[in-house]
């Protein structure tokens, strides 16, 4: 793949490279970067928050790339990608690059190609990368496979996810953001989250921001850098490993023939695993 144009700053060159990778060309890089994963229920204001963060980085003269991931329809295979609606700054500022990504055939909220798209961005000089993804139970954990810093977004009146389905997410999350602090009930939401967290052993900052007024965004930017310095947790490493493992499996050259044999009862699961490991 020819990245010369993209490295020299051509947005079209970058976009076309990202498409090649999205369509299946593997890519990896040794280049480093800071990848922030933002997850949370639909409507909590993730896209508005991403817009605010991107503007804050751009104001500091920093380039920032955004990947906004939304699910493909399992029926038609198509997708409606509407995050740009809330990210007008991406159309205006040369320091901001924004790309919508559909999950295509993959079940998780973050398809495995996203890791390779992130690699393309890093390789082309986009070191600060934000990934927005819809939280949907277990699947959202896959963001840990690509992001260095994970932010869970909540909002008043949306129910809080910490209490309910997402036991375990606390292991992976670095910052919890209560967005819409301009609305009534934000204090209460933050207090509820804090008291739920106090039962656990990990201390996670809970920050209030308003993506409408911009309140709290500066503090959030600082907090992101602080937690980024503290490195990647064991639980995060486990997600990274699991995701790469899955990827390896779904790209295994003999996957089809092994599935054929399983389907026709020629082999057991145990034998299939040995075949995949090349030990038959």
């Amino acid at each position, binding site marked *: 793949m020819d990245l010369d144009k993209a490295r020299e700053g051509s*947005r079209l060159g970058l*976009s076309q490279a*990202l498409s090649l990778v999205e369509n299946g060309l593997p890519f990896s890089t040794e280049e480093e970067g800071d990848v922030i994963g933002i997850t949370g229920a639909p409507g909590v204001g993730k896209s508005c928050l991403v817009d605010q963060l991107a503007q804050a980085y751009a104001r500091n003269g920093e380039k920032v790339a955004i990947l906004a991931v939304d699910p493909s329809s399992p029926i*038609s295979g*198509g997708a409606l990608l509407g995050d740009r609606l809330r990210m007008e700054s991406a*159309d*205006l500022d040369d320091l901001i690059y924004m790309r919508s990504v*559909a999950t295509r055939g993959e079940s998780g909220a973050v398809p495995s190609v996203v890791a390779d798209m992130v690699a393309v961005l890093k390789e082309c000089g986009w070191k600060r990368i934000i990934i927005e993804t819809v939280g949907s139970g277990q699947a959202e954990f896959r963001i840990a496979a690509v992001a260095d810093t994970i932010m869970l977004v909540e909002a008043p009146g949306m129910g809080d996810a910490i209490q309910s389905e997402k036991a375990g997410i606390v292991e992976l999350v670095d910052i919890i953001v209560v967005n819409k602090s301009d609305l009534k009930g934000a204090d209460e939401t933050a207090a509820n989250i804090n008291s739920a967290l106090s039962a656990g052993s990990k201390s996670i900052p809970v920050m209030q921001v308003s993506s409408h007024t911009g309140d709290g965004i500066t503090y959030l930017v600082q907090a992101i850098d602080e937690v980024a310095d503290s490195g990647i947790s064991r639980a995060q490493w486990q997600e990274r490993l699991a995701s790469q493992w899955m990827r390896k499996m779904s790209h295994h050259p003999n996957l089809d023939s092994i599935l054929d044999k399983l389907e026709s009862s020629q082999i057991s699961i145990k034998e299939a695993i040995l075949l995949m490991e090349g030990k038959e």
Partner: protein
Amino acid sequence: MATPLRIVIAKPGLDGHDRGAKVVARALRDAGHEVIYTGLRRTPEQIVRTVIDEDAQFLGLSSLSGAHAHLFPRVCKLLQESDVGHVIVFGGGIIPTADRPALFEAGIKAIFGPGTSSNQINDFISTAAAKDDAGCGAESDWHWGD
């Protein structure tokens, strides 16, 4: 499965009505395409930037405000100047018949009035996608319909 087409649906101009654009966006999604919806009141420059960032093959422009006569050709011109003359552009909304020849001349390849069925739009998309001279910067004067 074939790689989905990427289609940007945008609304230049100042009118605040996006129901029609949203209906088209959903119909295209249901036909298996990846549709990037940009929201209201985007400038031609912003729309072209979106098309480039998203590496879209198609761009659908919607206008109800009479802005089409000036803004649609401007978008086509900017696309050509930005090396993305391969992008196929179609228009929708309220566009008088008398205005259409000039828009085709500018590089718009189809114009759909209110009440167009999604089948018609999808037929256009698949026909145009199979052609190699349907881009807004192509020399050919092919366009959809008569």
